[in-house]
């Protein structure tokens, strides 16, 4: 424990915590929409092609963080251009992903002495990020959060109730593309913590756990952000304590959160709400027969 407190004084730990907080907030909000829009396959594809982008940038001796972002963004644009409608979307994603990963393999073979960096991108590097990378990650995170704040309400409408949203003038198709770009940024960020292969632990699990805890959309988003923060910061803490990779702990913590939400906390809260509802509904039940009689006589 003392060792951890001492570590908190180091730059690299502070960097990791600062970046981790921003990344967790972005992931928490985005994962709510990923779950509601049923886009886990797209997250996976963006992530793997982020790897291709990073590999390409490393080969060109450029920033791997920017390479990740380039890879995910180009993929998002491709998926968006080829088809964002739910039907056929996964097919398009599969087609794009297969080709992109092929490129990634090519980049690996072209680069000599690559294994370490490749491992870092595949499994997460958060305790290894530099000051510049932190600033870059906070910058990307801030822009992503601003974009999310701007589209939050119409995106919710388009996600939950697309037909009526279109009728009310919400640009449903354009928002689907905008959300892909937001996902691209979120994936590039989250890869820093858990790596390409474990991306779903931050972009699916918090949102999936939050759904079990409340029927209120705003509260669910807050829960999702809270769970993501807990997992990322908890992951960094245990990584410092034990010297194992951060992603090991983040995935374990987020899985534990999901199980708890689904099988323990969620059902209890649901029972409590049901009990409350029967109490508050009781008086209206007494009035009901009268109104249903008038309804019948009218008909």
């Amino acid at each position, binding site marked *: 424990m003392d060792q951890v407190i001492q570590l908190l004084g180091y730059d690299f730990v502070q960097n990791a915590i600062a970046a981790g907080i921003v990344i967790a907030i972005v992931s928490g909000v985005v994962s709510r929409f990923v779950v*509601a829009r049923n886009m886990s396959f797209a997250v996976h594809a963006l992530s793997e092609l982020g790897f291709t982008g990073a590999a390409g940038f490393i080969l060109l001796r450029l920033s791997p963080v920017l390479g990740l972002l380039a890879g995910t963004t180009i993929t998002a644009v491709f998926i968006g251009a080829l088809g964002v409608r739910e039907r056929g979307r996964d097919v398009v994603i599969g087609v794009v992903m297969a080709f992109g990963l092929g490129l990634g393999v090519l980049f690996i073979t072209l680069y000599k002495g690559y294994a370490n960096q490749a491992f870092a991108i595949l499994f997460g590097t958060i305790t290894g990020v530099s000051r510049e990378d932190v600033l870059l990650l906070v910058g990307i995170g801030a822009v992503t959060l601003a974009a999310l*704040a*701007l*589209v*939050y*309400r*119409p995106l*919710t*409408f388009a996600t*939950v*109730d697309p*037909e*009526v*949203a*279109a*009728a*009310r*003038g*919400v640009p449903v198709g354009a928002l689907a593309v905008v959300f892909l770009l937001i996902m691209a940024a979120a994936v590039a960020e989250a890869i820093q913590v858990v790596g390409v292969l474990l991306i779903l632990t931050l972009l699916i699990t918090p949102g999936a756990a*939050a*759904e*079990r805890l*409340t*029927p*209120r*959309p705003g*509260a*669910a988003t807050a829960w999702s952000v809270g769970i993501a923060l807990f997992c990322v910061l908890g992951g960094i803490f245990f990584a410092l304590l034990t010297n194992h990779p951060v992603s090991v702990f983040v995935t374990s913590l987020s899985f534990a959160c999901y199980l708890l939400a689904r099988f323990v906390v969620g059902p209890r809260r649901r029972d409590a*709400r049901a009990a409350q*509802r029967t109490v508050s*509904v009781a008086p*209206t039940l007494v009035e009901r027969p009268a*109104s249903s009689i008038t*309804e019948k006589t*009218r*008909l």
Partner: protein
Amino acid sequence: MNAVGFERVTLAYGERTIWSDLTLQIAPGSFVAILGPNGSGKTSLLRAILGLVAPAAGRIEVQGHAPHRGDPGIGYIPQHSSFDPDLPFRGRDLVRLGIDGHRWGMGLPDAKVTERVARALGSVEAAAYADAPIGRLSGGEQQRLRVAQALVGEPKLLLCDEPLANLDLRYQQTITGLIAAWRERSGGTVLFVTHDVNPVLSLVDQVLFVVNGRWAAGTPDEVLSSERMSELYRSHVDVVRVHGRVLVVGETTETGFNLDEPHHVPVAVEHRPEG
């Protein structure tokens, strides 16, 4: 000023013409049933009024102006479609989307908006289940919430696209009753797309029947007659009235009935030899 006016309007998707040369004036406060087989372009007609598709020819006017996306004067009730039971979203939230769901930004809590939502929920008697996850409600309860969602923005024109589909008879009556009460109260206009006119027959002022790109409009008695229907379908069709219900029945051919759903809505069989 008409609620909706069509002047020689043709609607087409690419090369395919959906229907053509539609001229129709809909007076404010009227209840218009839009009937016809699947794929005859009933929903496209609503989409044109909403400004989501532009007509290939002719002019549409909605409350004195050209149709435009996001017209606040229009409420919209879709067909019942189920929500994911685990979706954290309540009836209250669905109704609120009808007020400001289309606006940019976060949509933070607002006392005035909350109050309007509560009143809308009360007007459709949905307050008791407004806080339950919407995916766990019955189809009829969800459609009540849809009515509240469409009316909370205080529209002048209500577009309903098969709002009674997949509902049992009791809920069909409830939903129809709510829409009728709104029209009475507000003097608004209702365009009601349906495959079965019977649940709303007593309310209907005007019928628009669309078949294979052709159309007929007028009062129910004018349009729902054997002559007009046979003309429209270009085959022998009988319109029968039993117990205050209208049944449109086609003759039998080698390929079965020449109408798909004889007791509901007729669909012409395409393979029938011309003549």
